[in-house]
């Protein structure tokens, strides 16, 4: 059997493009929110998030110099709808992306006491989750700005977890996972049809307007 796909496959899968689009949207909107906040009395850093794609341990990016919340976007699962699509160049698929929102907290002394680090970490994770949810579920992103590719997007579930060993780390890290479902159309290399049979037809119109056709095989 010989290979029949003669076009080099270089295109990015839509499922990858959607993952990158989610990350781009979060990055851009976070920057825009900080610009809007700068015009008010609010601290722009309250809207700062750092966005990563496909990181397995992004909490390593937390340091004393930079403790702003981290978002990691990764592909989780995909399923296809066998009844939709033409089976030749495109098919309908549903993908779930894990959008993990991480917050960190270090216990700090205050004037009359201290701020516990575990509470700070939970608060930061929740704040990050709130911003991410508001951005992705905004009406502007109903098709993730990929209309024609994306048909629907929704939040399947939200789960809080702690990515740390036991419960006694020196730096607290809390996380909230958004399972984000996207329905989209995935495309494949264009199928080149073969000539099976030559068919020609000559169409004529009669004097009363009736369409007549003569075919030759």
């Amino acid at each position, binding site marked *: 059997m010989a290979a029949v796909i003669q076009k080099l496959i270089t295109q990015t899968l839509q499922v990858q493009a959607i993952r990158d689009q989610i990350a781009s949207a979060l990055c851009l909107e976070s920057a825009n929110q900080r610009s809007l906040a700068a015009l008010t009395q609010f601290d722009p850093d309250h809207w700062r998030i750092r966005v990563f794609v496909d990181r397995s341990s992004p909490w390593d990016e937390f340091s004393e110099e930079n403790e702003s919340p981290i978002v990691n976007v990764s592909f989780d699962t995909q399923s296809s709808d066998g009844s939709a699509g033409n089976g030749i160049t495109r098919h309908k698929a549903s993908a779930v992306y894990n959008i993990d929102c991480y917050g960190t907290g270090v216990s700090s002394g205050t004037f009359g006491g201290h701020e516990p680090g575990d509470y700070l970490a939970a608060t930061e994770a929740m704040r990050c989750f709130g911003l991410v949810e508001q951005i992705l579920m905004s009406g502007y992103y109903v098709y993730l700005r990929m209309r024609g590719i994306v048909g629907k997007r929704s939040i399947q579930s939200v789960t809080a977890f702690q*990515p740390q060993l036991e419960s006694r780390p*020196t730096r607290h890290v809390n996380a909230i996972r958004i399972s984000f479902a996207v329905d989209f159309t995935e495309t494949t290399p264009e199928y080149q049809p073969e000539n099976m049979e030559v068919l020609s037809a000559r169409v004529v119109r009669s004097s009363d307007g009736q369409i007549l056709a003569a075919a030759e095989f």
Partner: protein
Amino acid sequence: MGLREEAALDAREFLEDGDDFGWPLTITNPDSVSAALTGYSTDIHLTIDPETGQAVSGRQASVVIHMAALTEAGLTLPRGIAEKDLRPWTVETNDITGVKHTFKVIEAIPDRALGIVACTLEEFRAF
């Protein structure tokens, strides 16, 4: 002297021997009373959960000091403090390169047979 008392004395000797693994540290109570003691100190960064093999955030620090040393310094047993309007128990100690680190006591685990107390620590930024 019974064996138990001897064991407790030996434990203090091991903990406070600077020529062995004894390490200087300063412990401060919520009333800002400090004591310079010697004990065992650890600060390691684990990244793999041994049970699941999953990557985790795992820097852990702890100190072990003798309860008699605390008593002689006029301090009670440390404990973890979560109240925001109280200062926590803190421990200051240098790492092997001489950099000072400040920690908050999360949990104190006393062994009243040997007279030692192990304190689990977390990072702390002083006011």
